[in-house]
Structure formats: structure tokens, C-alpha cells
């Protein structure tokens, strides 16, 4: 595939997508484009379906038996829900960082090395060590942990753990990183560090981030999608959404009147 992007520069395009949890519909006919090398924020009140949509993008919803996805979600022109798609290959391309930092109860090194190991991305031990260092550097964690790579990742502080999870995700060199409220369990200082990091990562990766914080969406994202009760209310450049919302519900939400 030479042209990895669709016409408008989006790496992921979501079209006419409905998501059901059993009989209950969580997402109604959503169209969203995740723009390449940009940060797309998915915002909205609790239960609006933004996390559900994010988890559709790397098929993490597959593990929920009652979850059913209908519609067309394409990663660089390939239907990710096509029957012949290998989920493992998809998730290698579309990595994920979760709400609660969830490092494996293993050493810092093994945490980062796990992805490259299972995907056979490195040829030698030195190669692997190099990749681990590179990933930790990109996640801005190298200087803090370089002397204790053999210590458990669970012993780090919350913010460090989350950056470790980011390092772990980028170690497999995904094209897209999905972040599900990555800062909601962190203090403001750790949050600021992660936000700076997200801004840096945008150069090499495409990022989709679910967040509860309006300010965070405004600070880190280029595009914003506002969801309400499973519907995509408004989608556009972050500046426009925050400065000149077209929909009244968006207006109410970002000014704090609903949500």
C-alpha cells in the first residue's frame, strides 16, 4: 500500500458505525477521521461512548462477548473488521495506553521488551536493548530509570508507570496510539509531563485520546470529536470546537453546563 492515507489525510476512518452491548446500543452511526500525525481528542460526558469507540479502533472490544460492532472502520484503507484480519497484526499497528497505568509485574526492561519479543522485531540482545532504550527515551523516562531497568515496573510512581506503558506501546512501533484517559489517575504534574510527551509523540505517531478534561483536550489535540449519548455531536479542529462550537450541546458541555 503506497498511499497509506485516505484522501483527507486520515489514517483511520470510521464510517456509519454502530456499537451494541447486547440489546443496548452504545454508539449511533458515527463518522470520525483520525488524522495522521495529529492528536485527535474524543470528549464527552461519562457513558457517551467515547471509550467504546476508541476500543473499536484496535478491536479491544473483541474480548467482550456481547459487544457487536457494525459499520466500516478502515485503517489506511483496510477494513479492520474484515474476517481475514489478524487482530494481532492490527494491534501491533494500533497500540493502546489505558486509563490506569498497568505495567506488567515484571522488570522495567521486560515491560518494554515484551512487545518486540513477541513480535520478533529484534534480531539480537543488543538490538533489543537498543530498542528498549530508544522507547524509554521517547517516553521521556530513560534518564529516570536507566540505572534500575531490572527493577519491577510496578515500583515506579503513577506518572512514571504511565510513561512506562507509553514506552511499552511505542516499542512495537505502532502507527497509531490509542490513549484511554491516560492522565485520569495522575496528579497535575505527572499529567503535564504526559501532555508534553503526547505533543512530542505526534511527530512520529498518530494519537487518539479519550479525555474527561476539556483543558487537556484543548491543550494537546488538533482535532476534537464531541460525543453525547452515543452520538457524535460535533467533530472538527480543536480551535473551532472550543472557540466557535456549532452545536448548542457542545457549547453547554465545554462551558460546563452539562456533563
Amino acid at each position, binding site marked *: 500500500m503506497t498511499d497509506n492515507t485516505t484522501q483527507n489525510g486520515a489514517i483511520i476512518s470510521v464510517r456509519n458505525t454502530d456499537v451494541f452491548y447486547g440489546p443496548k446500543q452504545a454508539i449511533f452511526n458515527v463518522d470520525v477521521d483520525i488524522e495522521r500525525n495529529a492528536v485527535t481528542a474524543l470528549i464527552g460526558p461519562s457513558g457517551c461512548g467515547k471509550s467504546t469507540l476508541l476500543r473499536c479502533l*484496535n478491536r479491544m472490544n473483541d474480548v467482550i462477548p456481547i459487544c457487536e460492532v457494525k459499520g466500516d472502520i478502515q485503517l489506511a484503507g483496510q477494513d479492520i473488521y474484515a474476517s481475514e484480519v489478524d487482530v494481532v497484526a492490527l494491534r501491533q499497528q494500533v497500540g493502546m495506553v489505558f486509563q*490506569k497505568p*498497568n505495567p*506488567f509485574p515484571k522488570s522495567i526492561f521486560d515491560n518494554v521488551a*515484551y*512487545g518486540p519479543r513477541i513480535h520478533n522485531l529484534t534480531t539480537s540482545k543488543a538490538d533489543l536493548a537498543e530498542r528498549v532504550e530508544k522507547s524509554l527515551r521517547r517516553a521521556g523516562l530513560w534518564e529516570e530509570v536507566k540505572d534500575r531497568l531490572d527493577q519491577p515496573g510496578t515500583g515506579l510512581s503513577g506518572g512514571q508507570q504511565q510513561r512506562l506503558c507509553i514506552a*511499552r506501546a511505542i516499542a512495537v512501533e505502532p502507527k497509531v496510539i490509542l490513549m484511554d484517559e491516560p492522565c485520569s489517575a495522575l496528579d497535575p504534574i505527572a499529567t503535564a509531563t504526559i501532555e508534553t510527551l503526547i505533543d512530542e509523540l505526534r511527530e512520529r505517531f498518530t494519537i487518539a485520546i479519550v479525555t474527561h478534561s476539556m483543558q487537556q483536550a484543548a491543550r494537546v489535540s488538533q482535532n476534537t470529536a464531541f460525543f453525547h449519548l452515543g452520538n457524535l455531536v460535533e467533530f472538527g479542529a480543536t480551535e473551532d470546537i472550543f472557540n466557535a462550537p456549532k452545536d448548542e450541546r457542545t457549547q453547554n458541555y465545554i462551558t460546563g453546563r452539562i456533563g
Partner: protein
Amino acid sequence: MSDMMEVDSLTQGVDPKRHRSERLFRAFGIAAIALSLGFLVVMISSIVLRGTGAFQTTFVQIEIDLPEDKIDPEGTRNPEELALVRYGSILKQALRERFPEASTRAQRRELYRLVSATAEYTVRDQVAANPDLIGTRAKFWVRSSSDVDMFAKGNIDGSVDESQRRISDQQISWIESLRSEDALESRFNAQFFTSGDSREPEQAGIWGAVVGSFYSLLVCFILSFPLGVLAAVYLEEFAVKNRLSRIIEVNINNLAAVPSIVFGLLGLAIFLNFFNLPRSSPLVGGMVLALMTLPTIIIASRASLRAVPPSVREAALGLGASRVQTTFHHVVPLAMPGMLTGTIIGMAQALGETAPLLMIGMVAFIVDVPSGITDAATALPVQIFLWADSPERGFLEKTSAAIMVLLGFLVVMNLIAIVLRRRLEVRW
């Protein structure tokens, strides 16, 4: 003052009924614990009081003439031949010399019954080990008979009528005479730990049963641990949750409650009668115990798999690990301490199980220590059952001693479970 008015009094309006019910509940709880602890103390102390005697046994010293013409008439001192000499008559001769007052046949029979039937082998082995003794007169410590042992330990009351006890007045006077000459000694009963079962209480040991139990548990572990863990992993991590998997789950839980003797009958019908596996063997015993332990292991393993936080699975899946990789790289290692604990507790249960082993013939009287899983054997709890069933007074303390050994093994296994749990548990 106005502040005081705003807050309700903290001492008034207390509901006395609520307080009483709280106190009552606390009292019930303490009473329940005290009662069960009391029972435990009574049970263990009675076992210990009765059983400790079995770790000691009485030895008798007799001076024996070792005439060369009877033992080694050709004077070759060939150790192989020396190991075959019969010392029965020599020993009896020595006893008659020591107590010449035994003149009638009946008295002599009583006299010979002072020492264990194994006494002549003790003499034989010592002479064979030291052939210089031949032709001399030497003193030997030999095992007393169980009745003498019981009397020496005070388990037979000499004051009751002679017809009501297993030891005669004449024998008592001989024993007292031996004791006054320091020819009666209580020693550590090593044979109890090293030999197999016997019809004679003073010779019976638990080693055969210990080895039988060990082999049974080994077979049980080899079969039930991998099967149980893999079944749990499949059910918990891979199986689709539908009606069928729920039926399986209910049945596993029911299986855990099936009386063990039913598994014994199953073993009898299938393993012995259909597959013709060796009767009374630890192989079949272990297989039956494995059937019994499987549900326990599956239930414990599933519980510990469920206790692994979903975030670990998500993390691995999010990195592109397959389900098998996620399960075996992350989930199973984290669940392993719980699985091992469940397994050890299941094995401890199996160690104490008697009924299914009775059904497959491990209740036979077996003297030899088994040397493999297909040899006929018995197991510790069955040995206890067998001894408890024996009329001889000497088996009473053996029974309690064997119970102590069994309890010791159980305590050790549970300790191992706790230590493993502490060691392997990962906190996150």
C-alpha cells in the same frame, strides 16, 4: 451556647437493644471459637498422650552362650553362612538359664514370649557382624515382646486379676527381676519409622504406608495438576460463556461434593475391572485420588485466575499478544501461587482420604515396603484404619502415633502452601 444547641447529644438516645445485640454477637463468636479450640486441644492431646509411647520401645538384655559347634561347626566364619544360622534354640537356652524356675512347658512358653520373635535375628545379625563372639558368652539387647513393652510402659495394669490381662504373674516377676538388674531399657523405636506393617505390634512400622502414600500422591499430582490447571485456564480464559459452559461449571462444583467412596467405586469398576490395572497399587490409588482432587484444583485455579486483574490481560492484548501468549506469559504466572496453594490443599485432602483406597484394595495387609507405583501398597490413613481395627494392645499406641505422623505431614503440606504463596505472590 448556641453551638451546643445545634449538635444532638452524643450520649442520649442510644438504643440499648442495639448495644445488647452487638455484645451478644461478640459473645457468641468468642464462645464458638473457644468451643472449637477446646475440641481441638482435647483431640490432639489425647492422640499425643496415647501415641508418644509408640516412639519408644522396650529392650531386654540377655546373656547368651554362643557355642561354636552350633553356630559355625566347620569354623569357616563364612559371613553368608553366618547370616543363615538359626538362633532360636540358642536364645531359648539362654532364657532358660536366666530363669531356671520355668520348668513346665507352659511356663517355658511364657518365658519365651518375653522377647520378640525378631530377637533371634537381632542376635544373628550382631554375631554375623562380629564373628569373634562365636565361642564366647556375650550380652545382647533384644526387642521385648509387645506385651512386655506394654507392661513396662504401664499400659497393662498388674493389679487386675491375672485372667483379665495378657501377661501372667510369673512373667511380671521375671520382668521385675530384669528391671532390678537394669536389663530392661526403653529405647527410641527406630523400626517404627523404617519398617512395614506386621502382625506383631512391636515390629510394625509405618514406612510402608508412608511410601505408599507418597507414590499415590505422586501419581495424583502428576495427573491432577496439569489437567486441573489446564481445564481451569481453558474454562476461565478461552471458553465461550454459554449454557454449556455453565452446565460444566455447575457439574465441576457438584463433583467436588461427591462422596469420595463413590470415586473409589468408579476406580474399582473402571481402573481395576475394565482396564485390569494392578489391584492395591499406588498407581490406581493415585488415579482415584486424582479424580477426587481435580474439582478442588479446578475451582481453586479458576478463582486465582479470576483474581488476576483484567488490566494485565488488556495490557498484553493491547500490545498485540495473542490470547495464548497473554494467558501463558502473564495471567497464568500471576495465578500460579493461588493454583499451587489450591493444589497442595487438594493433595493434603487426598493424603487423608481412606474410603476410595479401601474400594481399590489398598486395605490389604502388606508387609513389604513398595518399591514402585505398581507394587501392592497401603497408605497412611488406611494403615491407621487397619491398626485401629487390630485387637492387640500394642496397636493402640501405634494407631495414635500414625495419626501424629499423618497430621505432621498435613501440617507440613499446609505450611508449604503458605510459604509458596508468600514467596511467589506478586503485588501490583
